[in-house]
């Protein structure tokens, strides 16, 4: 029996000729990541166990992105713990205010992660890098500590769901709509413990941004990872960025899949997730007109050049200024922030009061996610969010006012 793409990467990193779903293996790590929330806990665990050296100062990434610029004294102390550790161990990929971006936009942009890598990150959305053809998965702080100490970690080899993509997306429909649709189909635990393996002719039609967004939310279906095959678009993206040699893995023709889900991209409509689970999907059209109080365009899910207001990294921020996109948003009455995870997790900036409702391009709409337990989050694509921001209610992009279309156009391009 052949192996899936995920299984091949894991086998290569475990030094094994083959692995099978359910095997417990120990694999070599190419990158170990943490942020300002999870790294201090990992440092505590690392030091308490008596470790004094990191396995490789060039393979650890610490990005202070969640509560930064620090929202209060306690967050400042957490950042200080991470900063002191990074200095002490000469961590080469340490990102602080001024250089930091939202971690999952930052690492691909800076070429720290790439095809064929085996990556763990103490942040659930670490699965984003599957878009590059890497095995990448979210773990906790103790896993991060173990990774920092040994460069190794244990994994249960996942069985797989194949997501066969065909056709081409309609205008104003993007990767966000694809992944929300998929989560609506299979449920928030539809891919529990499994890998989501994207395949089919439709992959070529998706931009790298679409793929990052789709892989990012694999965890929202319970998935261990969400992985795309490496093609010309991937290689073009990593060219000149990725610090190491890309290693391309391909699934065997006779790889085993527990289930195959087919999505015709051309049939997808702008999709939203209603409170309080990402699987609670509807088309934007079905809920158009619903009153909202806030719109957030940003986060690691959708914070790239196509979706502004919280540009995900400094590089994207600069590009938005140069292209006049920031001006358009400020003129439209938007607040443009420095890169931060802030509102996505109700951390800071745009925290909501009881009874308020937001349309957000973020990734979770759990109870209390963006503030008060009686506030609500509707997940949507940047195009739907931009149209909704102009309309003041949930809106379908192509039906909105001309002004909305302009903003959407900027968001799309």
């Amino acid at each position, binding site marked *: 029996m052949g192996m899936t793409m995920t299984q091949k990467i894991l086998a290569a990193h475990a030094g094994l000729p083959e692995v099978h779903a359910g095997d*417990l293996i120990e694999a070599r790590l190419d990158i170990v990541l943490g942020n300002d*929330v*999870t790294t*201090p*806990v990992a440092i*505590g*665990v*690392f030091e*308490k*166990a*008596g*470790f004094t050296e990191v396995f490789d100062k060039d393979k650890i990434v610490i990005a202070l992105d*969640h*509560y930064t610029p620090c*929202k*209060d004294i*306690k*967050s400042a102390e*957490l950042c200080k713990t991470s900063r002191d550790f990074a200095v002490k161990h000469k961590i080469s990929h340490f990102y602080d205010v001024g250089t930091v971006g939202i971690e999952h936009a930052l690492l691909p942009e800076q070429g720290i992660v790439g095809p064929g890598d085996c990556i763990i*990150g*103490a*942040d*659930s959305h*670490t699965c984003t890098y599957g878009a590059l053809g890497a095995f990448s998965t*979210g*773990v*906790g*702080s*103790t*896993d991060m*500590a*173990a990774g920092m*100490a*040994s460069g190794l970690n*244990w994994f249960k080899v996942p069985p797989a769901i194949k997501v066969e993509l065909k056709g081409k997306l309609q205008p104003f429909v993007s990767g966000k709509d694809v992944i929300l649709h998929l989560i609506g189909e299979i449920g*928030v*635990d539809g891919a*529990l*413990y499994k890998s989501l393996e994207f395949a089919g002719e439709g992959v070529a039609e998706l931009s790298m941004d679409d793929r990052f967004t789709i892989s990012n939310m694999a*965890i929202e279906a*319970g998935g*261990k990872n969400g992985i795309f095959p490496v093609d010309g678009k991937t290689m073009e993206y990593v060219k000149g960025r990725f610090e190491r040699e890309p290693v391309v893995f391909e699934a065997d023709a006779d790889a085993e899949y527990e289930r195959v889900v087919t999505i015709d991209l051309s049939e997808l409509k702008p999709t939203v997730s209603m409170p309080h*689970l990402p699987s609670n999907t509807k088309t934007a059209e079905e809920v158009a007109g619903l009153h909202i109080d806030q719109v957030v365009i940003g986060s690691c899910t959708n914070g790239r050049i196509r979706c502004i207001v919280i540009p995900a990294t400094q590089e994207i921020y600069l590009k938005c200024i140069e292209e006049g996109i920031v001006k358009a948003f400020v003129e439209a009455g938007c607040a443009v922030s420095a890169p931060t995870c802030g509102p996505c*997790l*109700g*951390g800071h900036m745009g925290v909501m009061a009881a009874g308020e409702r937001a349309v957000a391009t973020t990734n*979770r709409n*759990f*109870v*209390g*996610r963006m503030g008060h*337990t009686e506030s609500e989050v509707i997940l949507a694509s940047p195009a739907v969010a931009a149209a909704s921001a102009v309309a003041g209610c949930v809106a379908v992009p192509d039906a909105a006012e001309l002004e909305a279309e302009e903003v959407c156009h900027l968001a799309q391009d």
Partner: protein
Amino acid sequence: MIRGKVWKFGDHVDTDVIIPARYLNAPEPSELAKHCMEDIDSSFAGAVQAGDIMVGGWNFGCGSSREHAPVAIQASGITCVIAASFARIFYRNSINIGFPILECPEASEAIRAGDIVTVDTETGKITDETTGQVFEAKPFPPFIQKIVESGGLLPYLKEKQGK
């Protein structure tokens, strides 16, 4: 052997309700315990007794990677979580901090809030003393059992290095 009174929760209990992000800036276990389950049951942290057991439904612990979630539950006094299924990062995190968790859909379905339950984590045997029902959860594979017995992943790594 673990014995305690049950706190029962439903399906898809996410890490944001187990420990809301607004409290992640103070990661000391005792601080996290004060706000454990606050957004789903605000009475929990004040009423939970050391030794109690938590029972959840499907996909328990879904959402973020925050290890603060199993740490908060453990620090609140809960000795074991039984659920129909666990989200994968929560599952790893619990093992890695040496916190016993058991997957058992039948037990998750049948056990009621307030029941007195005993759990043998080595064999996976769960007994509801209140109703007399007995359930068998799948025990951890030996490798995982070793991590839990060592008190977590890092002590396990240290032991391994020392050999």
